[in-house]
């Protein structure tokens, strides 16, 4: 970094005005006896983006807070941060090279779709059972492991769809059995604090599954072969393929954006399954029943839906989605029993950012986290440092969300289920 003073100076300025804004705005709204629920967010974002210039009018007028008043300052803060970075480090690849930025953004979006898909499972479980499943990463890992064994070790000739199918079915059954055996006491009021029980028991499941797989498979990294090869395409012509150029493992758009095969197939598959899932949730009776239970458990029971069955279905389905994400990504990354930890954390970040229990929020959150990670890894000058910080980017997003807007982007303020509100 050429002028670190600019960057850190602006950052300190933004943070201090953000803190001042969030605290003082809340105080002022409280004194005037107004709604303080989103004052922290507005105050912090307005303070971070404009400093006293924006805060003073806000404090004097104290208008009723709308969604626009939250969105624009938030975007402006991101903009100020980016400008400060560009000024501080004018020779950074992120600042000078447009094609690098385009490549990072498109890769960020693609990986973000996969992240969002995985988080979808978590949000489904949460919205119906009210449990944050800490075993989500382990289901992801098991999905990948099963796919690897089926497609690469046991039946190398068979279509990868078969392996993915087996992974889905077995994790679905595993999820259902676990729910029946260990989560049922939560619903009957036998347990004093069901939310904490849910956290601890899934935590125990994660621990058990991880070491079980390590004991059976061993701790050496494995890698599945590529599911399918791209056909060779040159557009507009083979002499001048500036539009699309493909090789077996890679796709290049406009001579600048390069996307690897496994990630693209994974993202496309995720979108297809997502559409199927939306169809299931909105058009079939069972899907509608699931959504009904997530909105109001008692009312759904009166309408003839068995909430206990829906609990089982939701946990099994949510775990299967995580396994499917793992099954798609086992061809992209090397696989270990510990591989689930970071994606699990990422899913927590995404569901909190999108709003616990919100399906569109999970997808948008996934894309945002994908972009933040792409920016973080691409723009930090020291590559090794950037790699070590990868788990932290999402966590910073998580902590900011929890501090400023715990309901997330699309969160319902009072979601039902066995859990309470925030």
């Amino acid at each position, binding site marked *: 970094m050429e002028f670190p003073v600019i960057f850190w100076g602006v950052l300190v300025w933004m943070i201090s005005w953000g803190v001042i804004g969030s605290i003082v705005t809340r105080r002022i709204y409280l004194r005037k006896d107004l709604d303080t629920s989103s004052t922290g967010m507005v105050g912090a974002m307005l303070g971070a983006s404009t400093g006293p210039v924006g805060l003073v009018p806000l404090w004097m007028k104290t208008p009723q807070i709308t969604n626009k008043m939250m969105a624009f300052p938030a975007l402006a803060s991101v903009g100020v941060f980016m400008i400060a970075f560009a000024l501080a480090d004018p020779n950074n690849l992120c600042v000078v090279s447009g094609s690098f930025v385009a490549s990072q953004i498109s890769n960020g979006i693609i990986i973000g779709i996969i992240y969002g898909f995985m988080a979808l499972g978590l949000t489904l479980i949460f919205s119906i059972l009210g449990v*944050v499943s800490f075993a989500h990463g382990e289901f992801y890992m098991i999905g990948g492991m099963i796919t690897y064994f089926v497609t690469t070790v046991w039946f190398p000739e068979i279509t990868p769809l078969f392996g993915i199918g087996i992974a889905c079915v077995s994790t679905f059954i595993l999820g259902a059995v676990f729910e029946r055996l260990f989560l049922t006491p939560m619903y009957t009021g036998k347990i004093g604090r069901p939310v904490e029980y849910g956290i601890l028991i899934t935590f125990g499941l994660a621990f058990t599954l991880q070491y*079980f797989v390590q004991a059976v498979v061993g701790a050496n990294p494995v890698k599945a072969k590529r599911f399918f090869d791209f056909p060779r395409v040159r557009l507009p012509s083979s002499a001048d393929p500036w539009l699309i150029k493909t090789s077996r493992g890679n796709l290049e758009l406009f001579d600048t954006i390069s996307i690897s095969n496994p990630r693209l197939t994974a993202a496309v598959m995720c979108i297809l399954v997502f559409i199927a899932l939306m169809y299931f949730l909105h058009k079939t009776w069972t899907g509608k029943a699931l959504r009904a239970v997530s909105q109001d458990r008692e009312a759904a029971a009166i309408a003839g839906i068995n909430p206990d069955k829906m609990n089982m279905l939701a946990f099994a389905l949510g775990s299967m989605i995580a396994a499917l994400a793992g099954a798609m990504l086992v061809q992209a990354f090397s696989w270990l029993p510990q591989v689930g930890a970071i994606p699990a954390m990422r899913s927590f970040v995404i569901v909190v950012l999108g709003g616990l229990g919100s399906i569109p929020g999970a997808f948008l959150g996934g894309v945002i986290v994908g972009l933040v990670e792409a920016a973080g890894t691409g723009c930090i000058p020291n590559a090794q440092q950037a790699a070590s910080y990868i788990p932290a980017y999402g966590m910073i997003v998580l902590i900011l969300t929890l501090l400023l807007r715990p309901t997330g982007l699309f969160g319902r303020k009072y979601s039902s289920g066995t859990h309470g509100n925030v």
Partner: protein
Amino acid sequence: MMNKVHAPQLIGLVLVIFFTLFPFVYSGNDYPYIMHIFITGFFYAILASSWSMLAGYAGQFSFGHLGFMGIGAYTAALFSHYFYLSPEPTNFCTEFSLGDSYLIILNPIGVTSSTLAQDCLKQAMEVWNGSVQVSPMPVWLGIVLGTLMGGFFGLLVGYLVLPLRAAYLALFTLGFAEILRAVISAEISITRGQAGIELRHMFENGITLFGRYYAQTDKLPPYFVMFFLLLLCLAILALLARSKFGLFVRALREDQDAAAALGVNTTRYKVLVFVVTSMMAAGAGATMAYYIGIVSPNNIVILQMSLVVAMAVIGGVENFAAAAIGAIFLEFMLEMLRNSFQIGPVVVDMTTWRLVIFGILLMLTLRFSPKGLLIPAIEYFTRGHVAKETVAKRGGESMDDASGVEGEN
């Protein structure tokens, strides 16, 4: 008259006497190994019992407890690694005059640096050629600093998590621990990243106790240091649990809003319970760091957190003494289960399978005896003659259970 109500206290006393006498009585070949297991057991006992105060008494299910432990350990390690006292100025380092000696702060150099041995103090030592005696910082000061730093971060996190409950709190604290770990692994020039940072040993030059000399590698002095730290933590926890503090944090657990409405300063007690328990975790971390001699970011991974959670839950999360005993016992059990064996042609690698057993034990305990395995035993003695716990159950579904009277005698 001896009453069976006093049985748990009696057992506690017997355990304390046992652990005090054990190092003098035991004389097997594996003496250092067994001692090491117990020291680690005490370390986990401090973590588990302080976590049980946080989670079981106050209802704050924090997954960042190991983060505070890491803060203590790294504060001690950085302090021990970067700060020295010298009677002469080095003219190479950052230094401050403190009375008639100088406080020397080493320049940070990373693990990848080719001039690994060439920090400023080494340069100065070459110039002095052995004429000046540089002394490292005392160990107790490192432990105190680590503890205070843990308390400071506990205060910070306690304030930040004030509005958060249950799942949100768990995720926030998990995020805190993960960021901490990422920062430690990334800032290689200061913390040396995954390679870990070395500390001087707890008793660098050995120690003479009651006329007997113990060498640096002798396990007995660190055993008693850790044991007394555990007893100190348990004493503090017992004091807190019996005072108004214990009552108030339990009110916080049952219903924060109701507690606030009844005049409990929930802000103060929620922050306070975080500060107290993080200080214990950090103190244990700093002491353990001096004993092991090296700290690395791997000490803060979520696996370690799982161990602490599992120990506390299996022992009994709503009783810190049960959590501590559970931790010592489970640590011992985990070590004993290390031996791999062979059934026919299949070699069972117990180093991994023991953890699977441990996880299954955790899940079964949670499912069938959510109070832990030790608390029901304690309650059999102490509460067998009184009505069942009279605290309000959430949601009111189980009113019948709550008012049921058990075993009148």
